[in-house]
Structure formats: C-alpha cells, structure tokens
C-alpha cells in the first residue's frame, strides 16, 4: 500500500481494539436477540395491545440487526466468500425491514399519541361526574332533612308545637348554636322574640319592624346572611367568642282572609315573622348553599303549617260557638213550647170558665124577656142580652183564633149544597137589611155546581161575617152578593203565590163578591183590616177579630180574601175566593146528608145515632130505650138529671128528657145542657117526653129551648117521624 495524503494513516487492526469491538458486537447481538423475546413476552401478557403487526415488524428488524452484528463477528478475521455473502444478505434484509418499520411508525405514532389524549379526557370526565354525584347526594340529603322536618312540623296542628319543633329540628339538622323566631306584635310595628332554641324563656325582646336589615330580609324570599351584630341576632352573651355566621329568612304568616280574594295572597297584606339561625361560634363553618336552600324550604313549610293551625283554631271556635247557640236555641224553643202550652191551657180553662156564666146570663136574660116587664125593664134586659151575646161571640172568636194560629184547627170537610148555604145566609141577613131599608140582592151564577166539598160551617161563618160587615157599615143604598166560579185570570190577578194550582176536575175556585154602597174604607187603612184588634174607624164596634179569623179560614181553604174601596164614602167590595172540591168525580168524603133523605122511605137510617135518655122510671126508661134501639140508635139511658148532664158529650145528637119527673126539674137540666155546649153546632137537640098534654108544659119546654115535645107513650111510628123531622129541620111539631 502506498502512503497518501490522508489525515490519519491507515493502521493495521490492533489486538486490543479488535478484542473490544468483538465483545461489543457480541453484546449488541445478545441485546438485539433478547429484546424481541421480551417484547413477545409482554405482548402475550397484555391482551389489549392493538399493534401486533408493528411489533412483529419491529421484532424482525431487531433480529436482523442482531444477526448482522453477529455475523460481523466473523469478519474480524480473514473470512471466506460465503461469510461475506451471508453478511451482505443479512445487511440487505435488515435495511429493507428497517425502512419498512420506519415507514410504519410514521403511521402509528399519531394514533398512539391520540390514545393518550383520550385517556386524559376520560379522566377529566370521571372527575366531573364524581363532583356531580357529590352534589346530588347532598341535595338528596337536604331533601330528606326537609321531609323529616316537614313531617315533624305537620304532625301537629298546634301552633306552638309547630314553631318549637321547627326550631329544634333545624337546630339538629344544621348543627346550629342558636335559632330564634321573631313574631310581629298585634300592632304590627314591632317584632317580638317569641321562640328560641337554647334560651328557655325569651324575655319578650322587641325590635322595631322598620329596621333596614329586617326590610332586607322581608323583601326577598331567600335566606339572607346578616351581620351577627344586628339587633335580631344579638342573642348570645357577647364575649370572647368569634360569632358564627347568621342567616335570616322570612316566614309568611298567612291569614284566612288572604285566600278569599280571587288572586293568590296579595303581597300588601302579608305579615311576616323572622327566623334567625346562627352557626356555632369559633367553628369557622360557613353557610353552604344547600343549607340555605333547606332553610328556605323549611320556612315555607312552616308558613303553610301555621296557616293550617290558624284555620283549625278558627273552625274550632266557630264550632264551639255554634254548639252554644244550639243549646241556647233549644232552651228557648222549650221555653216557647211551655209558654204556648201554658197559654193554651189558660185559654181553654178561661174560655170554659167565661162561657159558663155567659150562658147563664144569656139564658136567663132570654127567659126574663118572656115575663111581664115594663118597657124600661124590657129595654134594659135586651141591652144586657145583646151585650152578653157580643161578649160570648168574642170569647168564641178568641179561642178560635188561638187554635187557628197554632195550626191546631182543622177544617171539617163534608159535602154540602152551595145553594142552601147562600139561601140561608140571605135569609139570615135579609131582615136586618130590610129594617135598615137597604136593597139586598143575591145572585148565583148558573155555572156554580149544586154541591161542593168543603167546610160548610166555616164558609158560612166567613160569608156571614163579610156580609154582616157590609150591612153594618151601609146606612143607605144596596148590598149585592154574587157568587160564581173563578176564572184563571181572575186568580192571577191577586198575584198570590199560593194560588198556583189550576182548577182541575177535582176542585174549583168559588168567588164571592159583596158590594155595598156604604161608608167605604180609607185606602191607608186597607192593609190593617185583616190584622187583629186594629180598629180603623171609631164607629166600628166589631170585635176586631172577625176579619182576621175570616182571613185565616180562607187561607186554610187555600183561598184569598180582600176588600177594595175607592175611599171614604165610596162604598167597598169584599172579594172572597176559596177552593172547594167537586163531589162525584173524585173520592168523596163522608156525606153528612141526613136531611136529604126523603121521609117516605122505609126505615131511615138512624143507625148509630147517639142519643141520651133521661127517665127516672125504670120501666119507662127501658121501654123508651127499647124503642130507640129498635130504630137503630145508640142509646145511653140515665136515671137522674145530674148524671144526664155529666155523661152528655158532643157526640150525642139528641137528648130525651122526661119532664114529668116530680123530683127533677127537667127544664133546669135542659139549661145546664145548653150551658155545657157553647157552640150552637155542638149542642144536642132536646126532646121532652111528657104525659101532660097541657099548654103550660109545652110553653115551658119551648121557652127553655127544647126542640120538641113527645107525648108518652110513644109509638114506634111517632118516634120515627119525630126523629126524622128533628134531624132534618132541627125541631118537630107533634101531630096528634
């Protein structure tokens, strides 16, 4: 070899350097072979490694590198051509694989990097979720606390318990040092400390309600942190303590009146209480948001619970009041009933007591009139009689009226003849009208049914009263009575709400008009006419009860009565409308028709006719009783006058008195019987049985008001005809 101008001259391979190279190559090869083994081991261990192909490639690359270096070991000494070829092959292969690997790595390294990014992202997300979980748990706990608190608060309806429980539970849940409630005073100008947790007896501190801190709290529905030094929070003895944070919240006090208006409670009428909560001092605790939320929720619940308690209190008070009122009303009712009963008893007794002497006066005055009297005496006795009659009528009216007002008066319904009713009224009033030279006419509409169902006696009473009044107050002119069937429009004219029912097949409305040309009535006095005891004109000398009673009777008959007048001196018209039934088309009530049966029929039905017989002769008594029983009567036979008066009652229609008894004055008995029955209608007919035919006896009998005289012994036929005459006409004349 020639020496050249190189920097370093080529030197033959030193022994030492050769050795070191040899060793290094050996170790490199070793490393290059062991790395893939390690890689394979680790890859086998991890299942998730995604890039196995890359590893294989990498492994191949390293193996070949190792092979190259291994083969290099043989080139240190002289070597054959084969070794050179193998060496070359290995190097070529290594070059190929390594280039491929390099290319591959370019692809996969970004992916590997992004994996790392994703891992970081997921970690962040996990941390976030953890935080949220923490929050939810906190909220749930808060909710649980609230539910528990609410349950405690709502489990009672007593206001004090509610408030006390609230404070206690809040104190426990939130670990408070002090908890206080300030309520507005009655005036609404101050807040008074009402409840505290630790202080056992709050001493009635008050603070004015217009403090800025209080206004601040009242203006928001959130819990507000306030300074521990504000007057509402200064509840602990000041000292070396570092006071804990204080929070205040408003508690709306709802009143019943808040809910009565359409919109929900208006803010203007709200009253609030103040709840102050203090954390323990020296604890460096802070109010957390969820704790504040808890406090707000509790405050609302307390408001609701308090309103419930208030409503309950009010309803309890109302109920107690009602009970008291009930008791008082019951008491009053019983008193009223007692009073009514006492009045009725009194009236009944007084009436009876009053009637007895009354009838004695009337009877004896009448008898007196039959004797010889001077004209003066006669006038006096007539006046006595008239006054007593008037008084007797008044007494009857009073009893009637009281029974009418009680509602204890019942109409006695029966079938009667309308024509007869009017005819009798006409006959009764006509003489009086004639005496006063008044023109008195009666006109009955042809449409009027012949018979009607109603209370004949009382209808007659009403009619007599009205017509009598017309006659009384008419000095000259005429009186006209007209009766017809009322048409529907005339009913409506009265606008009376009770005349709703339309005339049907079963009943009709009878309309009676009584027109007179008399004194007339002042229009102002018209409403007072039917009131009791009110006299409109000084000339009126009626009892003052007559029209009132008429009105009540007419009302009972579902009718209407009124009097119209144009004014004083212009006459008046009385209109009476009553509801009557029509016989024959509906169920008829019992027919009281005894007088309609013709006399010639065989054995008229006296069946069940209740009579009393007085005769002290046992044989005569038995014979007469047998006679009456044979005719079908229900006979009660007595032997003395006293017994007769005692046993007679309103059911007996006829009394037979033997007047030939020497011991007993039968006339006196007759008078006593008359006295016993005040009403003409209830009185039984009295028949005298006598053996005397002289005129004196007959006169006496007539005078005491006996209805007939029978001469003993009485034959069956005579008795029969006498009885039928008696029942038909109310008297009989004995035919010899």
């Amino acid at each position, binding site marked *: 070899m020639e020496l050249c101008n190189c920097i370093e001259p080529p030197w033959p391979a030193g022994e030492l350097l050769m050795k070191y190279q040899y060793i290094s190559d050996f170790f490199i090869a070793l490393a290059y072979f062991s790395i893939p083994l390690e890689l394979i081991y680790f890859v086998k261990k991890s299942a998730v490694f995604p890039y196995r192909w890359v590893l294989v490639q990498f492994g191949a690359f390293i193996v070949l590198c190792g092979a190259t270096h291994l083969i290099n070991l043989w080139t240190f000494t002289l070597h054959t051509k084969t070794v050179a070829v193998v060496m070359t092959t290995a190097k070529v292969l290594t070059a190929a694989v390594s280039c491929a690997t390099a290319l591959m790595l370019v692809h996969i390294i970004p992916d590997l990097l992004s994996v790392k990014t994703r891992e970081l992202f997921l970690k962040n997300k996990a941390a976030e979720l953890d935080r949220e979980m923490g929050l939810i748990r906190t909220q749930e706990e808060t909710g649980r606390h609230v539910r528990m608190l609410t349950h405690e608060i709502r489990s009672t309806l007593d206001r004090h318990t509610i408030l006390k429980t609230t404070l206690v539970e809040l104190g426990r849940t939130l670990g408070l040092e002090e908890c206080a409630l300030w309520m507005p005073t009655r005036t609404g100008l101050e807040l008074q400390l009402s409840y505290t947790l630790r202080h056992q007896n709050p001493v009635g501190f008050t603070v004015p309600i217009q403090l800025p801190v209080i206004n601040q709290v009242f203006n928001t529905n959130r819990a507000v942190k306030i300074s521990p030094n504000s007057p509402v929070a200064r509840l602990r003895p000041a000292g070396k303590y570092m006071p804990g944070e204080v929070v205040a919240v408003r508690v709306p006090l709802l009143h019943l009146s808040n809910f009565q208006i359409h919109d929900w409670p208006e803010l203007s009428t709200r009253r609030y209480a103040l709840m102050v909560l203090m954390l323990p001092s020296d604890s460096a605790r802070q109010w957390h948001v969820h704790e504040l939320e808890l406090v707000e929720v509790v405050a609302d619940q307390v408001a609701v619970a308090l309103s419930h308690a208030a409503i309950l209190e009010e309803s309890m008070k109302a109920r107690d009041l009602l009970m008291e009122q009930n008791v008082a009303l019951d008491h009053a009712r019983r008193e009223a009933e007692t009073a009514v009963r006492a009045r009725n008893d009194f009236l009944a007794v007084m009436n009876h007591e009053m009637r007895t002497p009354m009838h004695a006066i009337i009877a004896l005055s009448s008898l007196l009139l039959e004797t010889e009297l001077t004209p003066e005496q006669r006038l006096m006795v007539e006046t006595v009689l008239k006054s007593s009659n008037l008084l007797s009528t008044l007494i009857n009216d009073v009893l009637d009226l009281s029974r009418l007002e009680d509602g204890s008066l019942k109409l006695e319904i029966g079938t009667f003849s309308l024509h007869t009713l009017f005819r009798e009224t006409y006959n009764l009033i006509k003489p009086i009208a004639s005496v006063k030279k008044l023109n008195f006419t009666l006109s009955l509409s042809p449409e009027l049914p012949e018979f009607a169902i109603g209370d004949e006696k009382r209808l007659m009473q009403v009619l007599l009263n009205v017509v009598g009044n017309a006659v009384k107050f008419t000095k000259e002119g005429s009186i006209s009575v007209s009766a017809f069937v009322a048409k529907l429009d005339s009913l409506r004219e009265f606008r009376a709400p009770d005349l709703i029912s339309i005339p049907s097949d079963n009943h009709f409305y009878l309309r009676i008009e009584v027109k007179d040309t008399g004194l007339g009535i002042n229009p102002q006095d018209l409403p007072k006419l039917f009131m009791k005891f009110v006299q409109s004109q000084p000339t009126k000398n009626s009892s003052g009860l007559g029209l009132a009673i008429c009105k009540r009777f007419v009302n009972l008959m579902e009718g209407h009565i009124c009097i119209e007048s144009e004014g004083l001196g212009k006459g008046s018209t009385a209109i009476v409308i009553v509801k009557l039934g029509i016989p024959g088309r509906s169920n008829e009530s019992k027919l009281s028709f005894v007088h309609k049966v013709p006399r010639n029929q065989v054995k008229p039905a006296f069946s069940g006719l209740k009579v009393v017989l007085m005769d002290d002769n046992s*044989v005569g008594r038995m*014979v007469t009783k047998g*006679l009456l*029983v044979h005719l079908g009567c229900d006979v009660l036979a007595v032997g003395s006058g006293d017994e007769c008066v005692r046993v007679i009652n309103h059911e007996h229609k006829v009394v037979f008195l033997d007047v030939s008894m020497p011991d007993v004055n039968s006339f006196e008995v007759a008078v006593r019987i008359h006295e016993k029955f005040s009403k003409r209608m209830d009185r039984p007919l009295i028949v005298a049985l006598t053996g005397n035919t002289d005129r004196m006896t007959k006169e006496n009998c007539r005078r005491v008001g006996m209805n007939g005289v029978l001469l003993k*012994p009485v034959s069956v036929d005579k008795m029969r005809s006498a009885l039928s005459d008696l029942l038909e006409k109310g008297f009989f004349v004995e035919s010899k």
Partner: protein
Amino acid sequence: MEIVGQLQKQYVEFSTSLYREGFLDEQFIQLQKLQDESNPDFVVEVVSIFFEDSEKLINDLATAIQQQVVDFKQVDAHVHQFKGSSSSIGANRVKNMCIALRSFCDEKNLDGCLRCLQQVKHEYFLVKNKLETLFRGISHLKENIDSFFSFLIHHFFRRKK
C-alpha cells in the same frame, strides 16, 4: 099439628080478650113490635121489671099511707111512678086506677086514698095473673111448635133412609 092449631087459637082468643077487657092497651102491642132477633126477650124482660118495680111501689105506698101523719106529696110521687110504669107497659086499668088515686091525693082524702090503693093493688094482681098466663101460653105454644118441627125433620130423614 092439631095441637099447635088449637093452642094458637087459644092464645089468640086469650090475648084478644085482654085487650077487649081493657087490661092491656095499644102500648102493649107497641112493646111487642120492639121485639126482634136482636132483642128476642124484650117483652118478657120489660114485664118482669114492671112486676119488680110495682111490688116495691105498692109496699112503699102501703107504708106511706099507714103513717101517723101521711105525707101526701110522697104518696103522690109513688103513685106518679106507678102510673108512669104501668102506662109504659100498657097496663091500662092499673094506669086508670093510679090516676084516680092521684086525684084523691091532691084532695088529701085519706079514706079515698086507702080505698083506691086497694083497687090499684087488685088491678095490678089481676093484670099480673093475666100476663103470666099469657106468657105460659106462649111458652107452651113454643114448645109444641118446636116438637112438631123436630118430629117433621126426624120423619123426613127417616124416610130418606
């Protein structure tokens, strides 16, 4: 059959004679009219009561008249009763005697009263006798009629067999 007819005839004759002789009058017929199914023994009952009453009255009258001082009012009262009951029965002659006795009482004629009372008693017993006979006759008649009918029925049924 014949017996019934005979008895009937006897009864009718007897009762007719009573009326003819004035013992009984129209009123007794009226009494009989009052007897019906509901009151089958009416006449007998009334007459029995009349007998009881009358005997008592007669005793009272006798006592009253035999007093030291005769209370004519009392006597009159008794006679009045007697008159009433006898006229209710239809005992005509008794009634007339009572009327006579009353007029003697009014006059306060003691002798007259005594004599009249005797006659009243006499008449009473007469009519009592007659009535009793009448009733016996009636019951006799009734018995016979009953037996006659039962004979008829018996006979009828026997023949049926």
